[in-house]
């Protein structure tokens, strides 16, 4: 790996750690979900750098695509439940 590659890898790793921290410590749930998806996205770029495109595709499709979608989906349902839960129960 060349110098540039190493620098890029380190940068990506730092981005991943920062995104993970935002996902845990952030106050806003949508931003937390987005940054959790970002962790997967950066991880898939890292897998690509490490010459494993198959794993990168899985990570991008499931980790950052489907999971993020699913979290938003569930978040919407939970929020809706919160809103009309009071009149119901």
């Amino acid at each position: 790996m060349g110098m540039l590659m190493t620098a890029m890898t380190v940068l990506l790793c730092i981005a991943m750690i920062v995104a993970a921290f935002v996902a845990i410590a952030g106050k806003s749930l949508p931003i937390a979900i987005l940054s959790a998806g970002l962790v997967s996205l950066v991880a898939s770029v890292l897998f690509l750098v490490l010459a494993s495109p198959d794993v990168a595709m899985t990570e991008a499709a499931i980790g950052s695509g489907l999971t993020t979608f699913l979290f938003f989906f569930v978040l919407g349902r939970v929020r809706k439940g919160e809103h009309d839960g009071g009149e119901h129960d």
Partner: protein
Amino acid sequence: MIKRVSVLLLLLAVGAIFATLLAGYEADPELNLTARYYADRTAADIGAANIVTAIVVTYRGLDTLGEVTVLFLSAAILGLVLAQGRKREQARRERVPAGELLTTGTRILAPLIMLLGVHVFVNGHLTPGGGFQGGAIVASGVLLLLLADPVKHFAHGLIAAVESLAGIFYVAIGLLGLLLAGGFLDNRFLPTGELGALFSAGAIPLIYSLIGLKVGAEFSAILADLSDTEEL
């Protein structure tokens, strides 16, 4: 406070373990014995341009069958658990329709996403990716449809039929390999053809397309179940 400090200490300890692992890592200058076997023999034996696919579908095909089964079981159990919540709500409540942006965007994007998914799993033996990745992409297209039109009822029967048929044909092709070629899930009962062509690598494109359909149908079934169930 003590909780926070202990969490931080734990994180640091895990980080230290990984750091020592990384410090002791040295890339091998050449492929090890197993990797070299696959790298040298795949093109001649299996005829697949993508070695990872050859390993996943043929050399370790039984493991893939196991993985698909695990996914099937989790989808089935989720459906079973959520079905109890569904029975209770007969009168469906009005749902808030999706915004204009989402509906219009979905109309453009959903076909493209599904096409990409199909492309990924049909070309699994040539390019990176395959059944699992393509199936997941197809399912994210389905999810987009679900988000855009939450009122629409999804065809559970169709999804279930696609999933079951794909599974049955997958096992049937595996048995054909046992009968006509070297063993269970052997791909060479069909001609391996020219390396790099779409119709090559024997039964791998067929098997991976079936896996793609099955995985896509399983994920879609999970999502449709979740969407059809009111909060428990």
